[in-house]
Structures are given as C-alpha cells and as structure tokens.
C-alpha cells in the first residue's frame, strides 16, 4: 500500500475553516472560526505555521493583499484550499466517518 501522510487534527480544522471562509480567508477570520467551533483560544502564530506546512504540502495556496493602516501598514496574506487540499479533506472525512460508524460508544449523538 502506498505510504500517505494523514492530516493532523489542527491541519484539518484549518482546512475546514478555510473552506467555510472562501476567498477572504486570512489569519484573523481563520483563528476566529476555529475558536467559535472549538470554544478554545487559538494562537494566530500556530495557525500561520500550520498554513505554511499545508502550503508546502500543496494543500493550500496564498496571495498577498494590500497593506492597510489598521494593521500598521502590513499586508494580509489570503489563503485558499487547492484541489489537492479538497481531496485530502474528503479522504479524511471518509476515514473518520468509517471509523465513527464502528464505535458503539458514539452511537446516538453527543451525551
């Protein structure tokens, strides 16, 4: 069987947040989306490191926006999921759903 690298838990969260946000995804909304879903504070620096790793794997692409005064003259970096990234998320979903189905403790929804 070919060796394939699985997506990490945080990588999957970042990819899902990116897919929900569409073209306007940059550090702040991505971390806010994860915070809202998980209820935990997220370090924006960790989000960027994960995005950098995902870009090296070819799962996301980035483009530089315009600098704004609100950000102290610094530009935003916008990210979006590539076709390969979308495939990886689908694979991860399939794997998780298959595993979930076989766990009797998780049947009947959240406790």
């Amino acid at each position, binding site marked *: 069987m070919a060796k394939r690298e699985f997506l990490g838990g945080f990588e999957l969260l970042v990819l899902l947040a990116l897919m929900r946000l569409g073209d306007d995804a*940059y*550090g*702040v909304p991505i*971390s806010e989306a994860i915070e809202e879903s998980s209820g935990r504070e997220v*370090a*924006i*620096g*960790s989000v*960027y*490191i994960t*995005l*950098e790793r995902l*870009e*090296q794997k070819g799962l996301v*692409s*980035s*483009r*530089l*926006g*315009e*600098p*704004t005064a*609100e*950000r*102290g003259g*610094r*530009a*935003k*970096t916008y990210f979006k999921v590539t076709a390969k990234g979308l495939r990886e998320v689908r694979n991860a979903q399939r794997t998780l759903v298959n595993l979930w189905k076989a766990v009797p403790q998780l049947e009947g929804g959240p406790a």
Partner: protein
Amino acid sequence: MRRSQPSRLATWLLTRMTSSPTSESLIGDLVEQFHRGHSSTWYWRQVVTSILADTAKEFRRHPILAVRANVVGFSVLAALQTGILSLIRNRPVHGALWVAGRWIQPAQWWPSPMLVWYLCLPVAGLFCGWLVGRLHQAHRIAMTRVFAGCFIAFQVVQVCIWLATVDWSVEFNLGHYAISSLILFVTILFSGLWGTPADGQSQLPQLSIPTRNT
C-alpha cells in the same frame, strides 16, 4: 488604562525571532486584533506563543542542526561555568597592588565570589549564543532560539528534580540558581538577535505568494 498601540517591544521581538515568510502578515493580524479591543496581555501571550511555536517548528524542520546547536551550546557553557567557578575558588594569593602609597593584598582587591559570578555569567551567555549562531550561519537566529529554549527547559526540569529530591540540610540556593539561569537564558537569546533578521530566513523555503492581478 488600555494602551492605544500594542507593545513595540513585543512587536520587535516577534519580528526578530520568527523565521516565517508570513511573519509580517502575522504581526498585521495581531495589530488588527489589538485595535479591535484585545488587551496588551493577549497581545504578549500571542507573541510568546508564536515565538515558541516557531522555535518548535525549527526544531522539527532541522533536527540534526538543533541537536548540534545544543551539543555545542551546552558543552561550551559547561566549560565556561567550570572556568568561572575555578576563578572564584582560586583567589590569587600573590599580586599585591600599589595604590595611593600602600600595598593592597589580593584579599582586598579581589572582588567577592558573587560579584565575579554575576559579572562573568552574562559574558558566558553572550559567548555561547554567539558561538551557536556563528556555527549555524544559515539558521543563526533559529538555532540560537532553539538552544535558548532547550537551555531554559533543562533548567526548569533540573529545578523540579532538585525540589523533589533535595536534601534540605545541605545549602541549596534556589534564588541564585533561578537568577543565574534567567541571566544566561536572556543573554543567549539576545546574542542571536545581533545582525539582520534575514539571516535566519536565508535558507528557509519561501512560500509561493503570487502578486494580485489588478
């Protein structure tokens, strides 16, 4: 009272201590969030977490270099500490100084052991950090940061072990140990900040960031 601008020191530290090509965008995000009402404490927490996460990333990305940086750093530091301790223990017997018409014996002009220790320690820290950076030119800031991080983690673990097993009948000065560790940590860290920030980025892969079509 809340500050109108985020801490310049925190921003400077983040600029100098991260090697990511997106660090400018990260700082922009943090500044944006600060202006939206987040506190200075939040800003500092984000900066420290980002630096720690970036240091861990560098360790994972260059494990062999990180191990080498630690071997060099800890070895040189141990040698220097031994040298300083020998300087303290072996106070010169001969070498009286002729000052203002009278001879002053070594016991009078030789500084107190504590003063020698605290004067030599920052020099030792700066030298170790500089040497680690010098031997890892392509990843100078990153490797100095990795060494500083491993050093402070090692000190914390050592203190925890001592606190659990120490024989309190033997003199154990936790305060001096903590201050010495802190001085070494800060000086090692800051020795890596000399030079241009780009030094730490020169060998790192760059993100493909196409310009926006207008």
